[in-house]
């Protein structure tokens, strides 16, 4: 078995060069669909609905890309990846990009040779505990057993947080959310920690959500965003600017409802350039002129995507917070379309 892994790794490494040398966008166009790496199930971000289709915040960004490139938001194949194997999947060419609640960090960007092209959700790490324990702050967790998913920034932040606060803990490492949830519900660990956004989804999916509380501390910065392979700037540009278009659409008031109308031309040159009625931005990306129109028509602008999947009227119930537009006190901001 070890041998197979070895040769797998070698062959994988062989593929790497092939994949990174060729232009990803051309490969995608030849193939007719995008290979998008998503989580194995994080409610609100990417999870299968009752018909087995992928739904969620991250999924909608993949669909926007499908619409922008093929005018078909279903021209996406979703590949579910665990926290552990996502970077290998990306670098071996198994997926074209990750929209997988992946935190942008220095070492991942520089040393792991992934390229982060934006931030679609500003997050931070939180803690959840059973109410019964009577804990009200993360500083009271001395000696607790903590369930963590391996291969994440979570496990590193956790070690830092407890060390800095001079506390001890017992880590219980698990491979994925499903197992972690089961162990947490059985009381094999006292604390469940991960990105606060995902924590809200996990809590909503517990048998008795009211019996658990999320502690007030947010112990890290987790800027989550799409990642592509290092060295293919054309493809990175496509992913970056489709996401920017969704944010810019919210900034300029373009929605899935009015985009078709506005695409005919407006008196706002920024909207016109973005939607392709002026200039040739689409062609510069190697896409059609109306790429942004299609993306917005398929999934709506950033605000619509947020509200539909994780907003306050969904079971996840997240407030916009840091993810509000910069004009409303948040951090979401698109560079200009010009």
């Amino acid at each position, binding site marked *: 078995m070890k041998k197979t892994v070895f040769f797998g790794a070698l062959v994988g490494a062989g593929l790497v060069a092939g994949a990174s040398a060729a232009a990803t966008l051309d490969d995608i166009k030849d193939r007719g669909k995008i290979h998008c790496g998503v989580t194995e199930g994080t409610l609100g971000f990417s999870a299968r609905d009752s018909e087995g289709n992928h739904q969620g915040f991250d999924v909608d960004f993949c669909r926007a890309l499908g619409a922008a490139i093929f005018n078909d938001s279903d021209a996406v194949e979703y590949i579910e990846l665990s926290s552990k194997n996502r970077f290998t999947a990306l670098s071996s060419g198994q997926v074209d990009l990750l929209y997988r609640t992946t935190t942008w960090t220095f070492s991942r960007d520089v040393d792991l*040779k992934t390229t982060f092209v934006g931030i679609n959700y500003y997050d931070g790490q939180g803690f959840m505990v059973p109410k019964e324990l009577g804990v009200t702050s993360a500083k009271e967790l*001395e000696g607790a057993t903590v369930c963590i998913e391996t*291969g994440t920034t979570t496990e590193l932040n956790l070690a830092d947080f407890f060390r800095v606060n001079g506390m001890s803990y017992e*880590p219980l490492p698990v491979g994925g959310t499903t197992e972690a949830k089961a162990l947490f519900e059985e009381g094999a660990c006292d604390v469940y920690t991960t990105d606060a956004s995902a924590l809200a989804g996990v809590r909503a999916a517990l048998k008795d959500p009211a019996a658990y509380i999320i502690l007030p501390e947010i112990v890290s910065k987790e800027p989550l965003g799409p990642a592509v392979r290092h060295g293919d700037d054309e493809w990175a540009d496509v992913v970056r600017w489709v996401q920017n278009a969704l944010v810019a659409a919210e900034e300029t008031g373009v929605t899935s409802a009015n985009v078709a109308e506005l695409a005919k031309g407006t008196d706002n040159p920024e909207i016109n350039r973005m939607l392709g009625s002026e200039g040739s931005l689409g062609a510069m990306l190697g896409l059609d002129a109306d790429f942004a129109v299609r993306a917005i028509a398929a999934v709506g602008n950033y605000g619509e995507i947020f509200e539909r999947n994780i907003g306050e009227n969904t079971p996840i119930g997240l407030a916009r917070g840091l993810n509000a537009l910069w004009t409303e006190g948040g951090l979401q901001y698109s560079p200009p379309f010009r």
Partner: protein
Amino acid sequence: MSDAAIPQAERFKLSMLIYDSRYRSATIQAVVLTLVLAFVFWIVNNAVTNLAALGKPIRFDFLGDTASYDINQKLIEYSSTDSHGRAVLVGLLNTLLVAFMGCVTATVIGVIGGVLRLSNNWLVSRLMVLYVEIFRNVPLLLWIFVCMFTLTALAPQPRAFRGENPEATMKLWDSIAITNRGIYLPEPLFSRSLGNIDIGIFLISVDLLAILAVLGAGIFAARWNSKRANAIQTATGDRPKTLGVNTALIVVPVLALLVILGFHIGKPALAGFNFRGGINMSAPLIALWLGLSLYTGTYIVEAVRSGIQAVNKGQTEAASALGIRPGRTMSLVVLPQAMRIIIPQLISQYLNLTKNSSLAIAIGYMDLVSTLGGVTLNQTGREMECILLLMAIYLTISLLISGGMNWYNERVKLVER
């Protein structure tokens, strides 16, 4: 004699490499070997150049970087500020720990089970067949999961031990706590401890060394005493009693040392979220250990059974003709002869168990695969280096085990006359 009769020394022609059966097989082997080497070289070269092109040349210096992650079950001191190299060492020791524990229990299960399997008692032998068939025919990973989830679902949580009328209580005079996070056992403590020696990689307890030294000296003295008794017996025909003196020689100094060191038992106690103190065997360790032992035990049962059955029936009959009881026949006559058939199979089962311990990652036991091939690989992104190292380490462990067992086999095998 004419010249013509002397066969001419045949001149070597290149075509003989193919047409002459003396050379043909060597030719084929050389060609195949060259092809295989070329293929391996091509793959390795391909990987190395491509990794270099990706900006990730093969280097092992990441082992010196700070690991930044914590490990729950550890045999040596370790914290998140230590290096990846040390984390790997912790993982390696955990692998060796569970492999050792597993081999011991699997052997005990296997030998007892193998003998019972051949019992004349119908029920007992059928029960053993049932055990073998059930455990052997379900994948090991499932058994490990079964053990883990039984433990986490059925054993009480630490907080069940709390309060005036707790739902759960500790066993054996409040010295053992069985929780769904693991089992906490009492530990030996010394109130006048001699401390530890730091040998660079880990600490060695001076207390332990002292006890071992005193024990060794005691055994040595007892041996000497027995020798003296033998000498007296040969000289006078009377053998002085040695049992009492020998026991005293071994036990008394150790007891005295324990008292001097202030030996006492430290019991685990509930503190905060978990039990503190005592020796902690975490739930993943127990689940993995049980799963591995029960699964591998079935193969050893079969190995022992076949070994026993391979011993000529005449041996048993001869033993009973001499009036030796069945139990002693088994242990004195049959088993020693069965060993030479059992041991080679045992070697491969030990190897299997050790390699199968890599399933640890599935239940969160931090073994070598979970540290080096798991968190370290992930956080550093050094796939190639980590997998190569893993393979090298497992290969070394396996070679050591089979080397050791082969040596033992040489010693016990029947000397044919």
